[in-house]
Each structure stands twice: as C-alpha cells, then as structure tokens.
C-alpha cells in the first residue's frame, strides 16, 4: 500500500510536469488536442494524490512505523482519530496535504473557468500545475512522507501535544488550504494576462469568485488559529503579532483589498493594473506565509514544521514574483484603462482608499516581521519587533479602516453630491452618536475605544438602516415583510452578501476593541479554600487533582465561581506536561458570555498545594468567535449564482424588431 502511494506520487509529478509543458505549448501554438490532453492529465492528479494520501493514512492506522513520517508523528498511544492531525502535523505530511488540496481545488476551478474563459484556461492551468508540481517535486526529492526507515522502531515518537486540541482539527488545514487557495485566483489572473485577456476584464467574475473563496478560507483559518491560541496557549489573549500569525494575516489583508477592488473593475472597467498587482502581492504574501511557517528565519510559537527547506520556498516565491512581474510588464498595454474617475467622493475612491490602508497594514506587518533579520545582518544585533510596535502603528490604521467600513458602503458609485452624502449618512451618524451617548452613560470613557465603537456603530447602523428601508420600500409596493426581505436579498446578492460580511467584521471588531481596551487581569497565588476576586467575580479555589497518564502528567484545578452573589458554576482548567516533548499545554477554564469571558488559567504549581493562577475578564471576546459563521453566510450569499440580468443577446425582448424599424 505504501509503495503504491509512492508510485502514485511519482506518476503525479510526471503528469503534472506534462500538464505544465503541454498546456503552455498548446496554448501558445494553438494546438487544441494538446491543451485538452494537459487538462485531462491535470484532472488525474487529485485521484493520484488521493492514492498517496490513503497510503499514508493506512500506514498511520496500521501503525506502520517503517514509514519515517508515521514513526515521527504518531505512536501506539495515539488514538486513531488523531491520524487526521498527524497527517499534516509534520513537514512532509503537510506538503502532501497542500498538494492534494491545491490539486483538487485547481481541478475544480478549471472546471468552472473552462467554458467561460476558454483561451485563458490553458495558461491558468499551466500556472496551477506549476505550483502543484513544485510541491510534488519537493516532496519526492526532499521530504517524502512515505519514505521508509532502514531500522523499524518499536514505537513511534508520538504527536506534538500542542496539536491535540479541537481547534487543531480544523485550524491548520484551513490555514494551509487558505494559503494554497490564493494560488487559484492568481493563476486565473496570470492566465488571463498571458492570453492577453487581462485588459478586457474577462477574468474578473471568476477571479472574484475564487478570490472570495480563498478569502473565506483564510478568514476561518485565522479565526480558528486565534481561538486555539486563546483556549490552549494559556495567556488569556488570542493575538500577539507573532511572526507566524503575521504571515497568515498578510495574505488575508491583500486578499481583502483584492475582493473589494475587483468590484471596481467589474462595475466600471477601472483598476485593471491595480487588481493584477494586488493578486500578485496576495500570492507572494501567501507564499511568504508558507516560507515563514516552514523554518523561515523568524522564530515563533506556531511554526510546527521546521526545516531548512524554507529557503526553497523563498526561492520559489522570488521566482514566481519575478515571473509574474515579467508577465505584467509584457502585457502592460492591455491593462491600461481609459475610464475616468468621475468624482473624488465615490465608491471607487473609497475602495482605493480601503486598498491602500490594507496594503499599509500589510506593509507595516511585513516590515516588522522581517526587520529582526535585517538588523541582525546589518548590525549583528537582533532587534525584537513585538506587539507594542504593531499595536501602535497598525492600531490607528485599523481604526481608520473600521471608520471607512462605516462610510464607504454608503457612497454611491461614480459620483455623489453633498446632498446625497448627507442623506445617506444622516441616520447612521445618528446611530453612531446614540451609541456614544449610551457608552458614556454606561461608563466607557476611553476616547480611542469610543471612536472605535462609534465607527462600528456607523457601519452596523448604515447596513441595518439601509436594510430596513429597502424592505419598507418593497413593502409599500405591496409585498409582505418576509417576502420583501427575501426578495431584497435575492435581488441584490453581491450587495447584501457584502453587507452580511461587514456585519461579521463588525462583530469581530467589537470583540477586538472590547478585549484590547477593557480586559483586566490578575495573577493570584492561592491555596485550596482560598477566595479571591476580580471585578464582579469571586472565585474559590477548590483544589487540584494530579494524575499521571502514560504520556503526560495532568493537573486539573477546580474553582467555584460567583458572579456578584450568584453561584455561576464550577470551572475546571487543565494543565498537562508531556515529558517526551518537554511541553506543557494549558487549557484555560473559560466561562463565555456575549458580554464578557471569565478566564482562569493555572500558570505554576508551587509547594504545599499553592498554585499561581492568572485570572482575566475579557469583554466581548465571544463576538469574535461568533463572527465566523456570519462571515461564511455572507460569502455564500454574495457568491450564490445570480441569474444573469436580462439575457439581452440570446433573447431579444418583444419590442426588438419594432425598435429597429
């Protein structure tokens, strides 16, 4: 079985290489048989990789420690369910996973673009196959997940305990899939450019579709990663501007800019070069993410598959970047747009401003992340660029972005007179002011937080008010309220899908603002029976139970928690130490409500039952995790295929002949 997987891997590389060559040559020389053959060949790659994957899974399940990867990432003690995690926990396995995902999604995307972009597809497919081929080649020559060991060990080394967490079942694969998926819109864009179709906007619809899909996957990956950090890293926070977090954030920022600016090209035929540049930047940053994650130069808590092959990823990144710049310059002329920006105050310029802001955040993040490498090279001293820097520089930029999220969607396309602007802004502004007054009454006096909350209120208010008015105006035309709501939604899917996404982002923002400005924490040392308090909460340390598992030492601590005078339950936190890995993993006890999280985490166990705990009240964090489903819903609504508006070509309306006469 393992050998079959090996063979499948080799065959997959050969077929992929063929697909690259045949697709480009076929498109270039206009040989339809050749491009068709490349395409069919490419379709056969995912099944082949599925064979390799099955082989690896089979080796895991049968505890076949003659396979190096299995021996390094599992042992007899590992429950079978963790095979899924172990599959991508190491370097070689994650490459196989990436290749499988990328090949499958690429094949699906080729199916979606083939009919509508017949000339672009061969080039796009060539690019996709090239990227898949890169992964396959690295796997076969440097990090083969199915490589055999000369001496078969009696038991494997086991899985990294930090990965044994529910979030780990979805977060890493989502994150990796997101990074890989950026390759799809990139390939479509490059294909369109190479086929000299870039300038005429052909690729825009499908580029937008796949851009949004990859955006959603990246978003979910980031959210799950933060959630994982929040619940298991045991420090009470979810984001620390750590290099690996940054490297996942940067492509997300670029893709966020892209999914917005692509709309301008769709609607107005503008921003052609800009969109190309954005997708190139997005893809480059996605590769940078893979590079940093995989033994890049900057150390981090999250990098799990350290290896020197990171440098190969860097080389590949530089190579694809140079190539895409070359293609860009080669087809430069086809990208020129003559459309005029009709007004400075318009949706178009709001999008441009949004793009610049997102790129600025991405730039600051990139710079801060890689700076230690520079400073070491230049002066020999490592300068750490940590959270204070990012908070201080990116914080204000993000605040402006949230403000723009409130105003931007209210600006009409093309032009807006001040009267329209006032009309559109009146009600949301009132909502924002109302929010401010309410917050002041509640006792929120932090100026920055007030402005931030007001911006969120502006965004949410704008959306809800527009929604309300839309429904009402339909209702006035004789539709019942539910029907009016549904018709409004289905009649303008991209618009309302976008609004739903914005609502999700507003929820995320509320969580971030609440927890960054109003979090309180305390480190307390307690003995069983001790009582301490933080804010409204009073907690009694009941005691700890220590148990020894075959692979770890577990300590479970229990607290009785009272909010005010009411008993709100017993909370249990857990700290485990894995001697083999010399890693401690802490699972905080979290009582989560939409208003605030109460969070207890044991940090040290001293002598005579005394232990130190960190206790936190994190306001609004709940909203961050709740935003995930909302974001997903928004994307689905936005992408749900709408019927083409009036097929003017196929069926001429009744009056056609008369009008001509």
């Amino acid at each position, binding site marked *: 079985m393992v050998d*079959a997987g090996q063979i499948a891997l080799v065959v997959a590389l050969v077929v992929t290489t063929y697909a690259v060559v045949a697709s480009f040559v076929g498109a270039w020389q206009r040989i339809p048989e050749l491009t068709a053959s490349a395409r069919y*060949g490419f379709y056969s790659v995912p099944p082949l990789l599925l*064979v390799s994957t099955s082989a690896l899974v089979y080796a895991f399940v049968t505890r076949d420690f003659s396979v190096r990867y299995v021996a390094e990432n599992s042992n007899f003690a590992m429950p079978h369910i963790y095979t899924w995690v172990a599959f991508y926990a190491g370097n070689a396995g994650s490459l196989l996973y990436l290749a499988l995902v990328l090949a499958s999604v690429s094949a699906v995307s080729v199916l979606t673009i083939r009919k509508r972009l017949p*000339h672009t597809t061969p080039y796009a497919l060539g690019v996709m196959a090239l990227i898949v081929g890169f992964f396959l080649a690295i796997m076969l020559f440097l990090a083969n997940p199915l490589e055999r060991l000369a001496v078969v060990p009696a038991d494997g080394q086991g899985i990294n305990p930090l990965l044994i967490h529910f979030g780990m079942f979805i977060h890493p694969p989502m994150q990796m899939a997101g990074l890989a998926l950026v390759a799809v819109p990139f390939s479509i864009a490059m294909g369109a450019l190479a086929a000299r179709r870039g300038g005429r906007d052909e690729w825009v619809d499908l580029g937008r579709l796949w851009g949004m899909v990859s955006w959603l996957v990246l978003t979910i990956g980031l959210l799950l990663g933060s959630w994982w950090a929040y619940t298991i890293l045991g420090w009470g926070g979810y984001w620390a501007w750590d290099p690996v977090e940054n490297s996942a954030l940067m492509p997300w920022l670029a893709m966020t800019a892209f999914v917005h600016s692509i709309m301008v090209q769709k609607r107005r035929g503008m921003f052609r070069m800009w969109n190309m540049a954005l997708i190139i930047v997005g893809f480059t940053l996605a590769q940078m993410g893979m590079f940093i994650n995989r033994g890049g130069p900057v150390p981090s808590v999250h990098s799990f598959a350290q290896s020197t092959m990171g440098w190969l990823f860097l080389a590949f990144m530089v190579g694809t970047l140079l190539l895409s710049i070359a293609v860009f310059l080669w087809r430069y002329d086809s990208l020129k747009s003559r459309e005029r920006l009709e007004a400075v105050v318009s949706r178009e310029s709001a999008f441009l401003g949004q793009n610049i802001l997102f790129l600025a955040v991405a730039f600051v993040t990139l710079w801060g992340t890689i700076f230690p490498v520079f400073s070491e090279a230049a002066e020999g001293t490592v300068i750490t660029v940590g959270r204070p820097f990012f908070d201080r520089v990116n914080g204000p930029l993000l605040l402006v972005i949230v403000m723009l999220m409130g105003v931007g969607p209210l600006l*009409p*396309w093309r032009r807006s007179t001040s009267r329209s602007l006032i009309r559109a802004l009146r009600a949301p502004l009132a909502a924002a002011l109302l929010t401010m007054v309410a917050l002041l009454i509640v006792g929120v006096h932090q100026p920055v937080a007030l402005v931030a909350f007001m911006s969120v209120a502006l965004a949410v208010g704008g959306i809800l008010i527009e929604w309300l008015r839309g429904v009402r105006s339909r209702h006035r035309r004789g539709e019942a309220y539910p029907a009016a709501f549904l018709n409004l939604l289905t009649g303008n899917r991209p618009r309302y899908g976008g609004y739903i996404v914005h609502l999700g982002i507003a929820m995320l923002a509320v969580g971030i603002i609440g927890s960054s400005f109003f979090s309180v924490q305390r480190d307390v040392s307690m003995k069983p029976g001790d009582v301490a308090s933080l804010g409204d909460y009073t907690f009694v340390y009941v005691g700890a139970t220590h148990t020894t598992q075959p692979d770890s030492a577990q300590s479970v601590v229990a607290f009785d928690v009272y909010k005010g005078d009411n008993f709100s339950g017993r909370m249990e936190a857990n700290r485990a130490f894995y001697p083999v890995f010399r890693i401690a993993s802490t699972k905080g006890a979290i009582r989560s409500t939409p208003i605030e999280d109460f969070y207890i985490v044991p940090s040290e166990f001293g002598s005579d039952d005394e232990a130190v705990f960190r206790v936190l009240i994190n306001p609004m964090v709940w909203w961050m995790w709740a935003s995930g489903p909302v974001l997903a819903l928004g994307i689905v609504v936005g992408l749900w295929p709408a019927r083409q508006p009036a097929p003017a070509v196929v069926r001429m309306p009744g009056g056609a002949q008369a009008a001509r006469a």
Partner: protein
Amino acid sequence: MLVFIAVALALIPAIVIAYPFLRRGVSREWLDDESSPMATLQRRWNAALDGIRSAELEYAIGSLDEDDYRWLRRQYMREAAVVMRAMDLEQEEQEELLTQIESEGARVRARVLGNERAVEQP
C-alpha cells in the same frame, strides 16, 4: 502485485492524456472566445444593468439624492442602450467598434456620451 499496481497507476493518466489525440472529429476547444466582441458587450451590458439596479435601489432606499439618481440612471441607460445597439450591428462592425473601445476607450465613450452634454447644457 506491485508491478500490477504500478502499471495501473501509470496507465490511467496515460490513457486520459492520449485521449484527445485519438478522439475523432473537430476539437471544440476554442469555439467560444471570451474576448469576442459579443462577450465583451455582454459584460458591459451586465455592468450597465447592475449600475441601473443599484442606482434604483439606492434611490428607493433614500440614500441617493434625486439629481444624482437621475444623472446616474441616465448614464447607465445610455451605456446599456449603446451596448444594445452595438449588439445589433454586424460582427464586423462590432469588431471595429471594439477596437476603438479598446484603443481609445475614452473617445468612443465620448462619442457615445458626447451628445449628452448637448442634452444637459442648453
């Protein structure tokens, strides 16, 4: 056994790859062209209609001023009308029109929109 698997794994892609060369009949690979004048016009048509719809919606909701709405709607209507007219033209003329749109988009738009000034200004 292993040899059999190896042959099977290699053979399937080989057959798939060879299939297009062995197939009879004319290839349908590039029957449509996404850059054909008709396809481009269709895209412009869609964009114009999207524009009308969103202008109407924003006006109905009350976030667009009456003047702005009239202006926007007229722009989009004209674009849609011009696209429709172009669709009625013969293939050849379409090609010509599009070359103009591509090479000097502004000028064509100018021709199309030029008379609007005449309407607006007197």
